[in-house]
């Protein structure tokens, strides 16, 4: 296992229901930015949640391995897994409006991890947090540390969350649609900020998004998901030049061009969807026959 994060054959099911991820394998090298794209419901967020151990109760891992920093997370006891994830990974959540605890001041929410997991002294953690808030371009960090989340604007809150994600110098950050809830002007600033922070800290980034434009700006390589199945993995440069899978091509063609706002939308063609759905069904059929599960 050379990759920093290596997902092998991961399958998730909705308890008593269908598979949500269909034998997904995915590697993220140290310091790499990997995009995860797909329609809503394709399972891209589920991958991030599985890695971070925050899957919803109704979802269950039925097979696979998640190697993070040479350790298979799924084989660890819950307390060990929590410690391992806390020390090596972090999350930049989707909605900055619900991602900070509304009844606690911002400061401790940034320093918590430093104190609890890394065992820093409060004062040191405090100094580090101030430094980080300045690094994400927050004016008057000391004041922001004393504020309650609802006193900050959405963009400002997302900056706080980015600072807090990078605080403990994690080796891997999962960014779960970090710009989706923001308006376009703020989106761009946040995107630049994440890219800059990533480059400076050398953190591997798993970037979950449905926006191919974002992928082209931030990511080095990407994986395209459909129905919980990885249909294509390639470097970003190759992907935008010539996508390998028919579905990827259709997805790329469906992205509206800002340069030509009057052009009609190009939905993914029916035939492509039928084909990729057949692929999904095929994967399920061979999975059952492969004897992974008997029910």
């Amino acid at each position, binding site marked *: 296992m050379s990759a920093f994060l290596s997902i092998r054959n991961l399958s998730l099911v909705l308890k008593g229901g269908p598979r949500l991820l269909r034998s997904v394998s995915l590697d993220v090298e140290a310091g790499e930015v990997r995009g995860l794209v797909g329609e809503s419901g394709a399972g891209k967020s589920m991958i991030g*949640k599985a890695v*971070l*151990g*925050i899957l919803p*109760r109704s979802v269950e891992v039925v097979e696979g391995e998640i190697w993070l920093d040479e350790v298979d997370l799924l084989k660890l006891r819950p*307390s060990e897994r*929590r*410690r391992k*994830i*806390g*020390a090596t*990974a*972090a*999350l930049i*959540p*989707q*909605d900055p409006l*619900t*991602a*900070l*605890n*509304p*009844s*606690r001041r911002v400061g401790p*929410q940034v320093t*918590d*991890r430093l104190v*609890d*997991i890394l065992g820093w002294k409060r004062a040191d953690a405090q100094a580090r947090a101030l430094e980080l808030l*300045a*690094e994400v*371009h*927050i*004016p*008057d960090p000391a004041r*922001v540390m004393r*504020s*309650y989340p*609802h*006193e*900050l*604007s959405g*963009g*400002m809150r997302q900056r706080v*969350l980015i600072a*807090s994600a990078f605080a403990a110098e994690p080796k891997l950050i999962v960014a779960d649609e970090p710009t989706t809830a923001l308006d376009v*002007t*703020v989106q761009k*600033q946040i995107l630049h900020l994440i890219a800059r922070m990533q480059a400076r800290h050398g953190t591997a980034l798993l970037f979950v998004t449905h926006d191919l434009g974002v992928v082209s700006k931030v990511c080095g390589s990407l994986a395209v998901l459909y129905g919980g199945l990885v249909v294509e993995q390639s470097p970003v440069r190759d992907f935008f030049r010539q996508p390998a899978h028919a579905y990827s091509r259709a997805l790329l063609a469906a992205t509206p061009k800002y340069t030509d706002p009057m052009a009609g939308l190009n939905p993914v063609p029916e035939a492509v969807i039928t084909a990729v759905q057949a692929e999904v069904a095929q994967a399920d059929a061979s999975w059952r026959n492969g004897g992974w599960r008997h029910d």
Partner: protein
Amino acid sequence: MPSSTPGFAMLDARAMVKRRLGLRLWLSGGWLVVLVVAATFAPWLAPHNPLEQDLFTSRLPPFWMAGAEPGYWLGTDSLGRDVLSRIMYGARIALVVALIAGTATALIGATLGLIAGYFRGWADLVISRLVDIWMAFPPVLFAILLIAVMGPGLVSVIVAIIVIDWTRFARVVRAEAMAQGAMDYVASAQVAGQKRLGTMLTEILPNVLPTIVVLLTLEMGIAVIVEAILSFVNLSISTDFPTWGGMIAEGRTSVHQAWWVLVFPLATLFLTVLSFSQLGEGLKDRFDPVLR
């Protein structure tokens, strides 16, 4: 260090809202303070012994009516006992019940609700089914049954209120804890290595607290009413000690001759319950960090 990026507002407008205490909080808080003082210092403040009977001064009207005697501000009942003094002593029982029964109910119900709503799984299953079964009992009948078994008295009244009403807290807090549990900040805390119990106490509980406070004050009002009902039907503490419910029961029989014996304790009861519920709402408006 790079200069700060301009171009978007740093502060949300809500940061600049100044919240005043508000009329609601002043009025309800004021009434409850008056009541607490009157109850606490009743032996010194009450103009008469609440138990002292004097048939020569029976059914004296309140001070503004013809035939009133000085010193009997709110008149006397048919046994010549001073109504004001009896209300003040009755407040002792009412407030003790409100405080103890209310707090204990909140503690038990909120704890169970928090566990059910956050941990879900079998804990939720057990607690929720228990709540469902509990709520199928008619509450007043349940209380009367309990007291019949335990014997009348202050402790029985308090226990009856706790036993009946914990479900109110459990249900509401459970739903709220579930809603908070789905928020991203809870996931973030977990990714940051927080233990489950720690997450419940530092992330969920503070955000459910405003709801618990509102429910608690409501519950205190309800406790006052339940105590009044039980003393109305003679199931609270012994009849010679003044209680609001007991006074209302006695006043009812002579309402045509001496309305004040009924109306004053009734009005006190009404104002007290109203104040409790308004206090809760007012506190929530004032201290909930998020304006809703």
